[in-house]
């Protein structure tokens, strides 16, 4: 175990860093954005995943979402279409052909990447989003005003919005099973995966394991750990047997790029717009957008 003093120091440093990185204006509200050295990560080995979708089932059950019976998850026809996580399914698995072994297609589980430098946290103007010590990016539904800046900011297009709900629509995404991990349980998907395609552990350790696997089973993998550096590093990382671009992973640089979102936030706060006015403006924008959508 690490020395508490060192950890405390690092936390403060990370907090300070986060503040400089553009949260000064909301410092009072203080959305948490810590980069703890103890943060967790998950390695998704897409060469091991068998596409059973047990993780999808476990995720829905753990989050109290409507869940079809487990037996129906064996249905392979769902793979005919590419799916994205949405408000009803916070994680989904997609299938891609394996050019060298047609009988063993690749499967890629998609969910929030739990970025080290989360664009969603930076973009959220009311500080509803936060990055916790254990690495989870969570959000506070009570604070959320439904502006959907997080959706626009996320480089992986993860947060989704309950458009279908007229009253109290909410933002939804994978929360790294925050409640479960607080109780020292594994994330539901990690726990359920029959082949342990999902390896959960301290992020540093997860990166080490990923590199070790590439070194030991060289011809199984392309030489890249997706997420180690992408978008400034992510909590969830991937190994793959074919080029990540072929598996529809966005090509991202190593710099955390919440750029646009920060600009919006800074712009608003730079002119000392009081929160009440802000709500009014945003309300108007939302109303307008909504009318336009309904009209379309």
């Amino acid at each position, binding site marked *: 175990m690490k020395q508490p003093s060192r950890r405390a120091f690092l936390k403060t440093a990370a907090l300070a860093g986060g503040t400089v990185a553009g949260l000064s204006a909301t410092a009072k509200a203080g959305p948490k954005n810590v980069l703890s050295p103890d943060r967790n990560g998950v390695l998704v080995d897409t060469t091991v995943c*068998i596409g059973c979708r047990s993780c999808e089932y476990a995720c829905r059950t753990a989050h109290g979402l409507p869940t079809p019976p487990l037996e129906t998850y*064996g249905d392979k026809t769902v*793979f005919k279409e590419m799916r994205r996580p949405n408000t009803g399914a916070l994680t989904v698995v997609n299938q891609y*052909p394996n050019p060298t072994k*047609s009988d*063993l297609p690749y499967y890629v589980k998609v969910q929030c990447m739990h970025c080290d430098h989360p664009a969603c946290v930076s973009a959220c103007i009311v500080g509803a989003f936060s990055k916790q010590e254990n690495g989870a990016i969570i959000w506070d539904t009570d604070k959320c005003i439904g502006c959907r800046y997080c959706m626009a900011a996320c480089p992986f297009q993860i947060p989704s919005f309950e458009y279908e709900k007229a009253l109290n629509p909410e933002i939804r995404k994978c929360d790294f099973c925050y409640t479960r991990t607080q109780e020292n349980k594994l994330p539901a998907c990690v726990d359920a995966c*029959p*082949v342990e395609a999902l390896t*959960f552990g301290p992020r540093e350790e997860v990166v080490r394991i990923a590199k*070790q696997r590439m070194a030991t089973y060289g011809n199984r993998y392309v030489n890249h750990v997706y997420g180690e550096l992408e978008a400034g590093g992510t909590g969830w990382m991937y190994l793959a047997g074919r080029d990540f671009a072929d598996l529809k992973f966005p090509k991202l640089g190593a710099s955390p790029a919440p750029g646009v979102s920060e600009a919006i936030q800074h712009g608003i706060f730079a002119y000392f717009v009081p929160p009440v006015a802000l709500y009014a403006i945003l309300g108007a924008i939302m109303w307008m957008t909504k009318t336009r959508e309904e009209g379309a």
Partner: protein
Amino acid sequence: MKHWSLCLITLFLFSPTGFGQGSKWEKHAPPPHTDVQCQTCHACPKPTKTDPCLVKCPRMHILPGHHPEQTGPNVLQMGDIASQYGPVVFAHKLHAEMSEMSGGCYDCHHYNSTAMTILSCRECHPKSRARADISMPDLKGAYHRQCMDCHRQWTHSTDCNGCHLKNEPGKTDAEAMRARELAGKVHPEVPLPTRVSYETRNQNGSYVTFFHDDHAKRFGLKCADCHKQEGCVRCHDVTKSKTADTKIREVKTQRSMEQLHEPCFSCHASDKCESCHVAAPMKAFDHARSSGWALNRFHLALSCQKCHGEKKRFTKVDTKCQTCHKGWTAAAFKHRITGLQLDETHGGLECESCHIEMNFAKPPSCAGCHEDKTYPAQRPGKMVSTTTNN
């Protein structure tokens, strides 16, 4: 004892990467791989005979050799999740028999101790998924990785109930029944093809005919000599005859030129392309056509190796009787053994009179004495039954 441990320390200090040639090591059978370090197998710096402090999971291929598959367990029952499912019945022997062509025992027992004991999965793979050492999969992951890679290929399904039977009242006997059923089961004999003809992209000769029967039976090759990394789906595929999901199946397995030729080249490396790539599928192997010497009766019954030496490249043999039949003499030879009993006149002749230059591959000639006779229209004796040997 003192001397022994001193020697160990010395070796440990000066030769950490290899087992030295020191005489004391004679007591310790050297591991088959020279790159094995002491620490791979011994946890303490001073292993002794009484306390060799062997590492439980050495994580290295140091299995000294195959043990006969009969000594492995027949059927295993794995009941780790007894609260939800009945035990999984695993036909160990049946799988071991089949594994020969796809990596053998190593496929599952990939790391072993030097102590000649075969480690089971649970001895290295921990039962808990939440754990400090995440460098290898937990037991659940390890099991499923081994099973699912093959089973999902041929069933195209990842359903649990192929192996796991849910605990339900009244179903308690199901596993026991399955275990009994699998216990005596052996893998059915694989029907071997006689001849396989491949259509290739070679422009000078697109057909390659492979005489499977000859290679497997006559030349005595073992299955694993050619089928080294054969997936189970070569034979097992529940949807093969049905219309398969085209989305998955349209991608053909790509194999490089080297990979395609590898099984042939281990023997035929010096052959020219044209010896295999020809314009039409070849007929079955015919000794007369290929060598000019038709085999009959006794010679036909022999294995190829008898005349041509061991498998791998066969050498051309001349047709002199003495080459194989050491000490053969014309005087002691009874011609009737060939099926033709020479009449009195011809029985006294030298072999060369009819078999020109003692070349028995060519038909005999009557021209030396008779102007108007030919063989086999006219025969120098009578045909006799060749089924008896007198």
